[in-house]
């Protein structure tokens, strides 16, 4: 269906000579754009419908006084479906701690939430295939579970700002949405996300189409191929100061992979960009002492680096 439309636009509307390089590029661009935007709309809508059944308030209750490990797994999974934006990181953190969610479990949630999300899923799926998307989601969850578990084991409660423990959290009664409101919410959310990411997506697809011919395919192999031991840690270090959502990073990732960076290194880079960011650290500084922020960055980086090596070894 998308192919027919892409062919129609290319050859009938734009009247480009079939068989030329330009025709191929335009055809590819229209087809891929349609496919990815269709997937984005369907999946974001579906995920936001699921999300409307979850709220940080409910997630907090589910995780309250959970045992470690099981709690870390649940928190990482709930991180995917609980609506969360890093601007709410402080109230969410305080709310969790106050409700008796263990510190390590809270961290699993905070790590998983920005890293594992539907936009990353769709874009990786649309541009690299479902296997890459599945690997990203699975390893993202593992990084969140493992990092949170280790932070929990280290018993770092004293590195949380004291006032967090003295905070009195009030009770609020948020009225549950009815089904019409939920659909309305999902439509709005889909619009909002599309509004934020469409430009990145178009750029990614455009680059993808244009780059095929230019720059040698193995341009990066020597620097960032499987055999370079330092490629993964360097990719992770580069990713920390870069702050972007999953959509923003996809064009870069696409180029890197196209030009020979190995899969494990690319995944590690993407995780580091989405999970570790300076703005979020500055926000979290309100509730965490600098030492805990440093430990947090350290543990997550190590977990991501291990993931990168693992995939470079097995893929």
């Amino acid at each position, binding site marked *: 269906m998308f192919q027919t439309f892409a062919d129609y636009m290319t050859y009938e509307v734009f009247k480009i000579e079939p068989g030329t390089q330009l025709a191929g590029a335009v055809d590819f661009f229209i087809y891929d754009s349609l496919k990815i935007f269709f997937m984005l709309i369907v999946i974001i809508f579906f995920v936001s419908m699921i999300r409307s059944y979850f*709220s*940080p*308030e409910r997630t*907090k209750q589910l995780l309250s006084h959970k045992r470690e490990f099981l709690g870390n797994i649940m928190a990482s999974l709930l991180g995917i479906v609980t*609506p*969360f*934006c890093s*601007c*709410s990181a*402080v*109230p*969410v953190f*305080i*709310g969790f701690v*106050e409700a008796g969610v263990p510190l390590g479990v809270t961290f699993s949630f905070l790590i998983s939430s920005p890293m594992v999300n539907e936009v990353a899923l769709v874009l990786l799926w649309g541009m690299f295939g479902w296997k890459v998307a599945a690997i990203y989601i699975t390893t993202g969850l593992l990084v969140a579970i493992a990092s949170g578990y280790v932070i929990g084991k280290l018993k770092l409660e004293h590195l949380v700002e004291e*006032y967090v423990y003295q*905070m*009195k*959290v*009030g*009770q*609020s*009664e*948020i009225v549950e949405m009815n089904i019409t409101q939920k659909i309305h*919410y999902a439509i*709005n959310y889909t619009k909002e996300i599309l509004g934020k990411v469409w430009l990145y997506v178009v750029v990614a697809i455009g680059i993808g189409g244009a780059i095929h011919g230019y720059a040698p395919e193995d341009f990066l192999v020597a620097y960032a191929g499987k055999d370079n031991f330092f490629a993964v840690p360097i990719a992770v270090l580069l990713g920390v100061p870069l702050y972007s959502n999953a959509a923003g990073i996809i064009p870069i990732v696409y180029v890197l992979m196209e030009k020979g960076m190995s899969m494990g290194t690319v995944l590690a880079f993407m995780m580091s960009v989405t999970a570790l960011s300076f703005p979020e650290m500055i*926000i979290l500084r*309100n509730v965490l002492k600098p030492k805990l922020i440093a430990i947090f960055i350290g543990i997550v980086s190590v977990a991501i680096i291990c993931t990168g090596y693992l995939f470079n070894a097995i893929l």
Partner: protein
Amino acid sequence: MMKIEILGMGCQKCSNLMDATKKAAAELNIEAEFVKVEDIKKIMSYGVMTTPALVVDGVVKVSGKIPSVEEIKALLQ
């Protein structure tokens, strides 16, 4: 006079919600005092975990999203 508070630690969404609420109040000819609440302790005391949130006369009406002006009008009446 109605007291309308917008809770949030100074993000873009908070000022969007403030604008939408002011518009809704103006359309309904409601006279209200608008307060921006950025202190985390105060925010937490309302039991709000997601910002921005809209509080009318001490009652949390909306949390974690920006409703349309029409929806806010319904909440203010």
